[in-house]
């Protein structure tokens, strides 16, 4: 398996040459990185070339690298007692990798013929970020791209019907961007005076939930008896 994966990796590099900016094998799967203006050509070859035959597009998703490498949780060491519970807020990793753009679109391909998967990553520059649509190559991209547009605000050039798909009617913003607050911006309530449901600025605050755990087993008997 590892050998054939290596061979497949080499074939990809040979076929596409410098169209592939970077590539690697991680957790049993090849990832290639390409430029957005070559996306359509590369995807077409991946689908139509006999040696690749990626007939299926399993997923398209966006990635926002805005806070990449910044961790809120102190999780460097594993322990048997669990995580540290505090949010440290602003523990910045010094070695943040430089990315060519804030957003990337990731395509997950599946070749049923060769029983193989491939991940294609494409950094999308610009504001708003914009990349060519692959709907004409794989029909399943239609809704996936609508979803990525809806949640990340990435535009897909050539998409036949690029509407929001998951968020509310009249929604403003792109919720999966890292600078979109977890609790959102608006909430809906029933207004008794107007006798209808209205939107208002969100009233809840973001907080960290700390589950209360009550244990009654031998490990805690000593502590309890001391009290």
């Amino acid at each position: 398996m590892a050998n054939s994966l290596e061979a497949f990796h080499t074939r990809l590099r040979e076929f596409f040459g410098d169209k592939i900016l970077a590539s690697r094998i991680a957790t049993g799967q090849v990832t290639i990185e390409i430029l957005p203006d070559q996306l359509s050509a590369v995807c077409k070859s991946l689908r139509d070339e006999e040696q690749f035959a990626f007939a299926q597009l399993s997923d398209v998703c966006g990635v926002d690298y805005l806070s990449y490498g910044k961790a809120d949780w102190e999780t460097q060491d594993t322990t048997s007692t669990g995580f540290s519970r505090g949010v440290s807020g602003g523990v910045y990793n010094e070695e943040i990798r430089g990315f060519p753009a804030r957003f990337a679109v990731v395509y997950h391909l599946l070749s049923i013929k060769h029983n193989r998967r491939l991940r294609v990553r494409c950094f999308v520059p610009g504001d708003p970020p914009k990349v060519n649509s692959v709907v004409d190559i794989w029909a399943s991209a239609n809704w996936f791209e609508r979803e990525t547009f809806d949640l990340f605000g990435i535009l897909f050039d050539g998409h036949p019907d690029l509407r929001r798909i998951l968020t509310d009617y009249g929604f403003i913003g792109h919720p999966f961007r890292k600078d979109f607050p977890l609790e959102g911006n608006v909430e809906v309530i029933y207004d008794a005076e107007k006798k209808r449901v209205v939107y208002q600025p969100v009233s809840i605050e973001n907080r960290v939930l700390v589950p209360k755990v009550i244990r009654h087993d031998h490990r805690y008997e000593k502590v309890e008896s001391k009290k």
Partner: protein
Amino acid sequence: MPEIRNMTINFGPQHPSAHGVLRLVLELDGEVVQRADPHIGLLHRGTEKLAESKPYNQSIGYMDRLDYISMMCNEHAYVLAIEKLLGITPPIRAQYIRVMYDEMTRILNHVFWLAAHAADIGAMTILLYCMRDRENILDCYEAVSGTRMHATYYRPGGVYRDLPETMPQYKPSEWHSQKDVEVMNSDRQGSLLDFIEAFTASFPGNLDDYETLLTENRIWKQRTVDIGVVTAERALQLGFTGPMLRGSGVEWDLRKKQPYEVYDRLDFDIVVGVNGDCYDRYLVHMEEMRQSIRIIRQCVDWLRANPGPTMLGCGQR
């Protein structure tokens, strides 16, 4: 002659036959839908956003809720991903337990699918029969996790606990006399594995009953044969997987092609349709349940013979 135009109607989002909250804007020519614009986001919860600010193991419960008809399978995918990233393999017993519960979840899912599908098409009898079988599997969920649906049973590195030695019992109530309860509890006298074994013995007979009601039923066939035909090419284009893809005649089963956990040790067949219509997909689902029973039986036998740890210890890989 009066002008005849297509009619556009709004369906849902709240509608008795919209499962969950689905809104469709439909263009109809008579009774035939010419165009449909589904608005699918009304149940969207932004799970990824919720998971963003939590440790990985606190998000397992969210995965149950992604598809609340096949809870443990979602957990499984999530937990497998964590294990892949960490490079750990759970103990073999945990893998067998997971596979067994995956297949029970498959039956849970297919039975619910059959109930809803048949009720939608007009075969009302099936619905309650199917719920009866579903109830048994939900009891198995409850026995291992304490909850009937959102189990959070699979954990990175294994499962939450080993299979229990006793099953929960029914108690007499206003609706069930002592005598009824004794009958209802007759399969529940032994361990969970005994209960599951009894289920694998009784369920195929129930499946036969459903097939008697449906498979050769004229009305059922009128409403499913040659309806919703999806060719293999189209199915691949649309990214179909699972029984949907197999219904279109593509022999693709991840359990065989890229086996995970212990699927490569188990004996079962891939079920494939021919025509890619609703009827073939129905047949695929039905046969898949029988294959699941086969897998569950093998798992029960193995789990009986091989006690052992169900969770990795500290520092183990």
